[in-house]
């Protein structure tokens, strides 16, 4: 059972969509039930004046509208919001085509029609078991419709400006030490430092201080810089400078980034 759906494009590029588990989907579903009940009670208020035509008629309309809402809400929301309902939005979930294509209306309807069997015998037992047993965490409705539910919370573009410091980098000035740094730092460690910088705004202040403190200590342990170079530099700035030294091409000087297209990579 894989935690992500891998799709290989004809261009030979692979991308992965992180799959949602049964628990978050259950919670989203509970939220959606709340939404249906709310819409139902609002409709009841709106349809109140129909009581004028007699209790019988207004009762009938109430039963039919409630049934129609409970049947159509999910499908309608998933179609209009490209695979999301209120619950799925709150939980950061999204229904997508299992082949990576666009979601078709018929797929949305089929996956929601199958709730009649996924909901059996009670509390979505069948759907839950299917979800746990299937390779891509699909309930029967997903299997029938060819859809998967993914975690889509991380859809915002990372703050790339974090990388483009453009500040004076004291570490890069001393060429031979910078070269030693490139030599000594393992690629994984460099990637971790880069990732930490990209995510720095997501961290708690104390955690952020601690993490960059640890990292700076690690890098300082690898290559010792003269005290006058590092004394005014914060831990975070130190890590940023290290990353810049690691990832920026040697031939280039800091602050002289070229804009011409087709930048080379080393």
């Amino acid at each position, binding site marked *: 059972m894989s935690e992500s759906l891998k799709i290989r494009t004809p261009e030979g590029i692979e991308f992965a969509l992180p799959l949602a588990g049964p628990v978050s989907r259950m919670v989203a579903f509970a939220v959606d039930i709340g939404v249906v009940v709310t819409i139902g009670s609002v409709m009841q208020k709106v349809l109140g004046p129909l009581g004028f035509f007699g209790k*019988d008629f207004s009762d009938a309309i109430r039963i039919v509208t409630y049934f129609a809402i409970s049947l159509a809400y999910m499908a309608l929301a998933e179609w209009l919001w490209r695979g999301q309902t209120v619950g799925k939005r709150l939980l950061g979930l999204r229904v997508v085509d299992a082949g990576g294509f666009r979601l078709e209306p018929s797929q949305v309807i089929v996956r929601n029609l199958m709730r*009649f069997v996924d909901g059996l015998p009670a509390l979505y037992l069948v759907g839950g078991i299917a979800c746990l047993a299937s390779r891509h965490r699909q309930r029967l409705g997903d299997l029938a419709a060819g859809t998967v539910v993914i975690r889509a919370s991380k859809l915002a573009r990372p703050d790339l400006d974090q990388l483009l410091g453009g500040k004076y980098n004291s570490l890069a000035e001393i060429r031979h030490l910078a070269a030693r740094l490139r030599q000594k730092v393992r690629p994984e460690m460099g990637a971790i430092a880069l990732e930490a910088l990209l995510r720095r705004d997501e961290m708690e202040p104390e955690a952020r201080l601690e993490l960059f403190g640890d990292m700076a200590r690690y890098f300082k342990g690898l290559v010792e810089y003269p005290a006058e170079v590092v004394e005014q530099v914060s831990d975070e700035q130190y890590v940023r400078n290290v990353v810049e030294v690691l990832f920026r091409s040697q031939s280039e000087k800091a602050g002289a980034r070229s804009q011409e297209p087709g930048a080379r990579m080393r």
Partner: protein
Amino acid sequence: MILDISRFVETERPHWTALERSLAWLEVNPQARLTLSEVENLHVLYQRASADLARVPEGELKKYLEWLVSRAYAEIHEARERKRFRPWRWVTEEYPRTFRKHWKAFQLAAVLTIGGVAFGALALRIDPEAKSVIMPFEALQGSPADRVAKERERKGQHMEGVKSTFSAELMTHNTQVALTTLALGMTFGFGTIVLLFYNGVILGAVAYDYVHGGQAVFLMGWLLPHGVIEIPAILVGGQAGLVIAYALIGWGSRVSRAERLRIVSKDVVTLALGAAVMLVWAGIVESFLSQYHEPVISYGTKIAFGVVEAALLTSYLAFAGRKA
């Protein structure tokens, strides 16, 4: 792979932003048609983002590019035709055509139900005590003759003031039954078959009970007006369930299971909608007509009404939307 990440981001970012913008536009305007140069441009941007995705290391940037490429992939590699739903065309052509396309599944559903009817009738003939087990409704437990006498007496007055509500309950309940029969197709048809047979058993037992009690005319007057629509509607639900089951099993098929299900999904939706529409009509008839018996409405009228409905439904499903 180590690359000059900041420079890379700086040169590529304008292209990502452009791609993001065109995707956002396409997603808001799904019906839009692009010009050739727009399509080319989109394709170039997509390929560029794909190439970038292949180069970046694991992490946030990769996730962002995966998200971008996955969206672009969906737009570019989507080959399925997009049709607008046209209600009139659906009624006059699409539904009856889909019904005929899966005629064999409907036949099988009908055979299963008829088998159930035979079983139910036989069971009651062999063992009259079985009545309480087979029939879940209290109203049917008594003897048919008593019921007919009672119905004659109350002249449908018990229905005053609850007709619409009853009708609404019938519609929702029957739609649930039909859709459950459909959804159970995902059990490789097993659940669908059981449900169709079981429905037949009840029907057969009730029919035998009334015919045996000498109330055949009452029975026809009672069941025909709504039954000739309701029973076929349930069968259409079963038909759709069997279509799903067949796609799941895929005897002698070379395409993958996912692909087979994808192929039938549109037809399944059409049949489900068709069954629901039929059940709305049946619900209205059952509440407003079927519950009235002689002397309010003569049995002859009710039976004739049912026969006319059956004829109309048959000719609609058999001939509507046929190419000349």
